């Protein structure tokens, strides 16, 4: 998929954001899950934003995956995604940290309790 990575880039990354690298919101992470809000793509959407929306149309992707598809640095994609989230075109979900995941044992005991209730 990336036969041209060995070659020198023609379009630099700063062009995507007009030189900005500070996203408008600092809640985004490499692993933030992005999914499209389903708004119609209008002409005021810039090409790179349009490409992100196209990528997300089939389903959700993490921010790092989007960056890899676009061949752009994560920091730049964060800015683009933050803009899209601000415009309401995209929903971003913070990844659930490992420590906060539900305890499997408790869930199993709840399930068993429910089963025993039924029978």
């Amino acid at each position, binding site marked *: 998929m990336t036969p041209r990575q060995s070659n020198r880039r023609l379009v630099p990354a700063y062009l995507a954001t007009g030189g900005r690298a500070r996203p408008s919101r600092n809640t985004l992470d490499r692993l933030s899950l992005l999914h499209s809000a389903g708004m119609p793509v209008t002409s005021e959407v810039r090409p790179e934003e349009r490409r992100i929306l196209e990528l997300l149309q089939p*389903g959700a992707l993490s921010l790092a995956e989007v960056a890899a598809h676009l061949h752009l640095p994560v920091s730049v994609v964060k800015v683009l995604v933050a803009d899209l989230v601000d415009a309401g075109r995209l929903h971003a979900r913070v990844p659930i940290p490992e420590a906060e995941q539900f305890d499997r044992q408790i869930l199993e005991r709840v399930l068993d309790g429910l089963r025993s209730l039924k029978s």
Partner: protein
Amino acid sequence: MTSIPEALLWCLSAGTAAAVVLAALLVRTHKQRADLRQRLTASEEQNSATLHSNTELSARLRATEAEIRHLAGARLPDLTMALAHPHVPVRGLLDSRFAGSETDHALTAVLEQIGQAVTSERQRVDAAAQSTLRGATTTIQALLYRLQTALQDMQHRYDDPQIAQDLLDADFLNEQALRRIQATSVVCGAWPGLTREDSYLAELVVGATSRLRGYERVQVSNQLRDPVAVVARAVEPIAITVTELLANALHHSHQELPVTVTLQQGNRGASVIIDDYGVGMHDDEIKHAMELLSGDDDLLLTQLGDPPRSGFAAAGQLVRQYGYGVHVEPSPYGGVRAVVYIPGDPLLTVLDESAQPMSVMAPLPHRAGVPDRSSSVLPTGASTPPPAAHAPSAVRPAAAPAQTAAPTPAPDPAARPDAPAAPAPAEGELPRRRRRKPVSEDEQSAPRAESIPPRSPEETASRWAALQQGTESGRAAAQSEPPRSPEGNAH
């Protein structure tokens, strides 16, 4: 007595003889005198003639000296000035009587000799300066490319917004430095210093804008029907040319005015049209620019002015070497319009976008905007969900259907069920490539895409029924199993 007459006779005869002799002498003297007088007249005449010619000669000498002084004092400075500035006239002879004379020929020969000597010396000095500069710029350019690679790697490595900001700023500065160095080295006769692979024209133009301060004012509108690309050897030269023309446009227009770039596809080539809405250029500026852009003359660094304006000169050199065309004219909006025409035959090609995706920053074809929604709504709005194989092409959102639908609306919907992967090209037309969907991503998105088309109520019902069946059977299995500890307690 006889002695007296005898003596008298003697005296008389002697007197007569003397008289005869005297008479003869007298006659002779008379003759001589006349002769002398004649001679005197002649020599007087000669003398006056000599005097006359002498004054004439001395006057002529003075005139010649004045002519030589004129040569040294006026005509030679004129000549050296005229060699540097062709519009300066060289004065002619001081005295028009010398025209065509030996003096005139000799003086003209002097002027020619000096002219040749000055020209060749100037070329020699200029060539030395060019080679010095070329040596320096080539090295600096290579170093800047290495810096670019390093900065790019760092951009991918560090996520921190503040570091990323600094890296982007540094990258932009580096790009600007590269542009200057590259233009200078091209003016000095070097090659552009970089061979890229075949690249899309839209990508090339966007890349060219990124090298300039004020690139956010440039609005690129893409009117290309096909994914037109420039062949590898001409990518960097055309990028330099477009950059320099854009720099001129940005420089000559106000900081808040846009510069519009239109990519237009013609029958036999493609054009990049750059319009600014600025102050424009004078007629002689445009004439000078066109002279530089034609690339006909050998270029001297001394012609570039101080500070040197190398943009048009660099573009002109490349135009001559690579065989595309640049035209500059006053635009109907009052600014300047510059057109780069790239002939299709040696310099353009069409790339497969699935094999080589276009950069995400490249502007989309303009036409995709309007027919886009209608054609993307059409397949998903159909009542039956498309079979799995058709899913990617049916839900492919943006430009893929639009590109084929715009020129050939009729055959495309009919062809779609038969050709799931790529829209079928109409007969006699060039094959159209789909727009920016990497192959692997298509394959990935195929299973996910199945869930997108709206389900019929029956299908939904059957799915829920299957879920319920599953849980029922699971419970039945749990009941039939030997009871585990918590269940055993409950019984």
